[in-house]
């Protein structure tokens, strides 16, 4: 058996190593993720879009995106100063897309993050404790999920009034059942594992079991689903704006741009092509990343 002195000597060596330690698992995931070419492409696109969003003001001023200048109507794409052309009010489409990224991404990410927090709380309670609470939450959520999602969102927006924040709240509320379902499934798959019982056997209290054992092991699939959900939310938000019930003009937003442009798409198709591409590319990059992340988290699925 080890003596105290021996342990003391080892102590220094191991303390050094401990600094490297924590990385173990995430490093491994990152290594596998990096090998996945499509996932990396997705990540680069998304990082690019994020950078555009963050530095939007540095790229092109907000005024360019909203100031109407009728004399500049429908300048075709590729023209000097208007790479993507101009719209029916003579506003630069590229500028509107750059600034529109803020609203679109904000709604997508915001709705998912808040939704996941609420859904995560309820979902993990349902999954971990089971029994009556579980069946109550599941039943209620199943009922809500019967209501067509888009109609639920739209009626909430109608009740609250059309604005960015309200669309965000509406999407969040309407999607909470979905997140509860995801989190509950992830928690359930962990809660049945032997190491939960092993932790209980060595005296770990419930909240620490959730914190140290359940969450770290369940978080992977939740992050994957969340990543992909951001894409879906961006599409939904665009749909709401497209119907004219979300963000109101002249605020630049991709869906709203499509709504305005749809009347001119016959003669000026580029006015609908570019905003749509932006939505699609953003969602695609998120989906690619989510897919790669899933493979990286669970290499069993491959081969």
């Amino acid at each position: 058996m080890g003596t105290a002195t021996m342990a003391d000597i080892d102590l220094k060596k191991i303390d050094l190593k401990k600094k490297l330690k924590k990385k173990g698992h995430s490093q491994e995931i990152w290594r596998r993720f990096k090998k996945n070419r499509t996932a990396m492409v997705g990540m680069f696109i998304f990082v690019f879009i994020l950078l555009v969003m963050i530095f939007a003001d540095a790229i092109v001023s907000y005024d360019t995106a909203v100031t109407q200048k009728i004399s500049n109507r429908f300048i075709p794409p590729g023209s000097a100063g208007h790479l993507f052309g101009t719209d029916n009010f003579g506003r630069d489409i590229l500028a509107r897309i750059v600034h529109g990224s803020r609203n679109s991404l904000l709604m997508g990410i915001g709705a998912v993050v808040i939704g996941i927090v609420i859904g995560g709380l309820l979902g993990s309670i349902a999954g971990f404790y089971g029994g009556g609470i579980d069946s109550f939450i599941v039943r209620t959520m199943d009922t809500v999920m019967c209501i067509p999602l888009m109609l639920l969102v739209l009626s909430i927006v109608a009740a609250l009034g059309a604005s960015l924040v309200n669309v965000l709240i509406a999407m969040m509320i309407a999607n909470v059942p979905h997140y509860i379902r995801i989190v509950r499934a992830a928690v359930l798959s962990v809660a049945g594992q032997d190491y939960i019982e092993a932790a209980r056997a060595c005296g770990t209290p419930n909240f620490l079991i959730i914190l140290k054992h359940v969450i770290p092991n369940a978080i992977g699939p939740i992050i994957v689903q969340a990543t992909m959900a951001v894409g879906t939310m961006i599409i939904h938000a665009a749909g709401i704006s497209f119907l004219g019930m979300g963000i109101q003009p002249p605020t630049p937003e991709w869906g709203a741009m499509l709504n305005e442009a749809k009347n001119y798409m016959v003669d000026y198709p580029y006015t609908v092509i570019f905003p749509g591409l932006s939505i699609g590319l953003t969602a695609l990059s998120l989906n690619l990343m989510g897919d790669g992340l899933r493979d990286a988290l669970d290499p069993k699925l491959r081969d």
Partner: protein
Amino acid sequence: MARYVFKRVLMLVPMLLIVIFIVSFIMNLTPSDPGTLILGERATKDAIQELNDRLGYNDPFFIRYVRYVSRALRGDLGNSWKNGAPVIQEIVRRFPATLTLAVGAIVIGLTIGMTLGILSAVKQYSALDVAGTAFAMALASFPGFWIGMMLIILFALKLRWLPSFGVGSMKHYILPWFTTSCSFGASMLRMTRTSMLESIRMDYIRTARAKGQTEKLVILRHALRNALLPVVTILGMSFGGLLGGTVTIETVFSIPGVGSLVIEAIRMKDVPVVVGATVTLATCFTLLMLVVDILYAFIDPRIRARYIRH
């Protein structure tokens, strides 16, 4: 089995009560009242007030809820505030277009999505698999209504092969069908592929191969049937979703479906139509999910046994 179905149908009742409650509650928050809608903005406050009183709109929310439920149970979903027509009649008038759109899209998406999904799984990592999954992911990433616009630009405006909007003939439906089937077909492909990959790895596939079964039958008889459960689930949910969730696509193609009815009603703050149509759609969705559960029983004897035991 019959008892199981009966029990499930019975469970529909409390579920619909909750749905009605949720939708009515949300709509109750909208700044709208029947008096203004029926009499118009120019009517006197008193006249509006009087009409609202007569329609019972000024009663507390809970009383109106109970009254609505008791009528709904007798099959009366009320009348539209806008034009006074019975809500049921409005829904019945709009339903065929929605159903045509949904069924066509399902058929297209199911055929293409499932076939490609099976092939991708069988030939995992092949060019077909890579291309198929990439295509599916791209389709799922672009908003359906935008894909619809692109199809209109290409096939209706440039090539002039197909009409761009309206519901005059079946030809009018071709673009909407393909548009709607995009995201459904994509999820079908992905789900079929994942599910097939899982079942192909099962031990009983090895048993079938060791028997000397041909590869074709190993896939069709053993792998596919076992992979169907999640596929059927997605099918049911998507079908239910398509009944009410194609609002944007209906808008693009000017199809007078139930989705459009609801969105128009939401815009007009025509509460009875919103509640009535949403409840109808939710009922359809639940019934579809019941059909899915019954299909489960046909596919998997283990589930059948569970139903019979209950």
